[in-house]
């Protein structure tokens, strides 16, 4: 684990200048305002392809880390992050773009296979329980009750009923202009994004074919998005685009707004949201932590440098998971936050 102290020192100086306490000393990197990160473990992965394309992903939940790389979806026990244990894996016939997890299911965008529904209730033996073949390349999917929405390059947003997971039934689709990129759900709301500019909001509780309840066009829409409820009843949506952090306030789903475009020190590639705190995989600049409590004025809280380029970030409980590396060699870095 190699760390770049020069930038950390610069960050520390910045925090001091901003009036924060910056307890950067000794072997403990970062941070400020009560956020403290330190590496506690890692999982080697053979490659970390470019973010936004067919990419490796890590998502953690309840002591497990779910990692996709190429065609493989693999589950690790990370209850002891210092000693991750590989449990089980499922090999798709097509490359995995990305996935989202709802309960005991992983909804996988499996390229030309379409939607793949994995039962992950037994982490030692993830099992494909259903597929739905969209008409183009499926890149990600997300669930709400018995509905799953899929992002497909030819169709846009495709909605299927998975009451019978073995035989998903098409409900309808909505064409999304440009390149449809991502979809994420929060309650009954689904947020979909496209390049170059569109953010689409759908209410999945409504019957029938998907129709957006609102559409926002703003330059530099992110390829990958995350959504989170923040204090005060607001709802934030974030993503990385053009190396910047893009912040949306979607508290009113009928009238989403682009709250801010925030230039991070590096090149933002992916974002994870915890309430009003964004963890940004910031390329060469490692992990940046950004306060979004005032969405129109993002504020850098601190950073954590990595030896290698940070591509993807997620968190679960007290741990942050980062894919760092390059197309030849990479690892999932496990950080403890306190």
């Amino acid at each position, binding site marked *: 684990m190699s760390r770049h102290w020069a930038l950390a020192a610069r960050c520390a100086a910045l925090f001091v200048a901003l009036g924060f306490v910056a307890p950067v000393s000794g072997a403990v990197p970062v941070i400020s305002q009560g956020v403290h990160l330190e590496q506690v473990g890692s999982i080697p992965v053979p490659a970390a*392809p*470019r973010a936004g394309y067919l990419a490796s992903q890590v998502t953690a939940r309840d002591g497990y880390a779910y990692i996709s790389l190429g065609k493989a979806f693999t589950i690790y026990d990370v209850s002891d992050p210092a000693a991750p244990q590989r449990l089980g894996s499922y090999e798709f016939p097509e490359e995995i773009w990305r996935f989202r997890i709802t309960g005991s299911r992983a909804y996988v965008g499996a390229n*030309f296979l379409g939607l793949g529904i994995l039962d992950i209730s037994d982490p030692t033996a993830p099992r494909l329980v259903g597929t739905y073949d969209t008409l183009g390349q499926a890149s990600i999917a997300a669930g709400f009750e018995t509905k799953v929405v899929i992002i497909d390059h*030819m*169709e846009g947003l495709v909605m299927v009923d998975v009451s019978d997971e073995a035989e998903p039934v098409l409900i309808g689709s909505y064409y999304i202009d440009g390149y449809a990129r991502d979809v994420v759900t929060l309650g009954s709301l689904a947020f979909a994004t496209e390049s170059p500019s569109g953010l689409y909001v759908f209410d999945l509780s409504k019957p029938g074919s998907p129709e957006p309840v609102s559409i926002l066009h703003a330059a530099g829409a992110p390829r990958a998005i995350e959504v989170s409820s923040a204090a005060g009843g607001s709802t934030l949506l974030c993503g990385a685009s053009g190396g910047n952090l893009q912040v949306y306030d979607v508290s009113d789903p009928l009238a989403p707004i682009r709250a801010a475009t925030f230039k991070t020190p590096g090149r933002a590639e992916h974002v994870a949201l915890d309430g009003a705190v964004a963890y940004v995989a910031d390329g060469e600049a490692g992990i940046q932590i950004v306060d979004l409590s005032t969405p129109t004025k993002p504020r850098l809280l601190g950073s954590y440098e990595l030896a290698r380029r940070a591509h993807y970030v997620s968190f679960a409980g007290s741990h942050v998971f980062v894919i760092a590396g390059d197309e030849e060699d990479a690892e999932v870095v496990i950080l403890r936050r306190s």
Partner: protein
Amino acid sequence: MNRVLPCVTSGLLALMGASALGQDQWPQFRGPHAGDVVDDPALPDTWSETENVVWKIDVPGQSWSSPVVWGDHVFVTSAVSSGDEPAPVPGLYEEGHDFGAIKSSAQHRWVVYDVDFATGKLNWERELHRATPPFSKHIKNTYATETPVTDGRHLYVFFGSIGLLGALNLSGETVWTTKVDVFETRWQYGPAASPALHDDRLYILSDNANGTSLVAFDTKTGEEIWRVLREQHGGANWSRSWSTPFVWENELRTEIVTAGAASVRSYDLDGNLLWKIDGMSSMTVPTPFAKHGLVYISAGYPGEALRPVYAVRAGASGDITLWKKGGPATAFPGPLRSSEHIAWSYPLLGPYSTSTLVYGDYHYTLLDRGFLLCHDARTGEEIYGRQRIEIGNGFTASPWAYNGKIFLLSEDGDTFVVQAGPEFKILGKNALDEMSLATPAVVRGSVILRTQSKLYRIARGTRR
């Protein structure tokens, strides 16, 4: 309808003859009128793999070049591999780790076929080169995607992937060949722009990873006459176009219109820049064409904030840029705008691969994921907005029209027949059940249609 072919003695007269006689000949990509075919009641509206098929033949290798027709000659090109090549993938394909680039290690033969128009029998086959392709190509591209062009005396063939420009006589004998610089293309997609023929010159636009050039060649000798090394703002990263140059004979002058990535540029016949438009899609494929005194230019990479269609008046000079860099970040197709030299433009209307069509008073845009739109060709006013053709069916071949109908050939090999005019109505669907990206030729009552492995002559009243 077999008319007596005119005997012409010059390339200019030959092309003019082809133009004056309508679709007796089909000398180039999209024919003499950019897909607008002279009406002919003998032309078919319906077909299948067996219905209205005069003949169909297997064509070896992989190629998406269009057939061209002169007299009894139907010319097609191909790159024939000695190995197994991966099949192309239909639909809007987003690349994986390698941008979709495929490198073949098998030896290829670059071949021209002359097929008899009446019978479908092979008149001759000429191998022009044999080698392992020096560069990769996109999985949807081929090593022989450029459409040849003919003036009735010679067939001019360009294989950009190996840098070979050549002239054959109609008996298949090589008149000359010229080596052209070969460059890696951006993201290893491989080249595709076809040569443009005007008078005694061939024009080749080469946008590649090293830069961009427009080169004029002598049709009689293959010698280079002039070369313009173009600068693209944004550098070599922006040298991403697969668009064929268009020689525009307008009421004021003759000029060469090139649709490049980032910029449209028009040159006089000596290669001097006349005007430019900054503001294109970063990947530009459609070929410009002219109607109603306007030249229509488009580009539409789906992920781009600027995917414009421009209708430009004759006589422009200097920088006539309309849209600011980065586009307006608005809903499709964006606002209609005009200027002194641009009759109309939309910032997001442009198609990815298909060229647009002007038929009668209307401008038709066929979007890659299966939508047709119609606008007033002179003013750009919307006649109808996005009309769905068929979900999931992608389009790369450019549309054509005759007898009051628009024809839209999908990548799945389905030709949708749409009523021309202000009301959108799908009249039928003709399926050939094989991937199709090449724009057909339409000549003497027949549609010459190329699928992935076959060449069809389709005409009324025949059944196989």
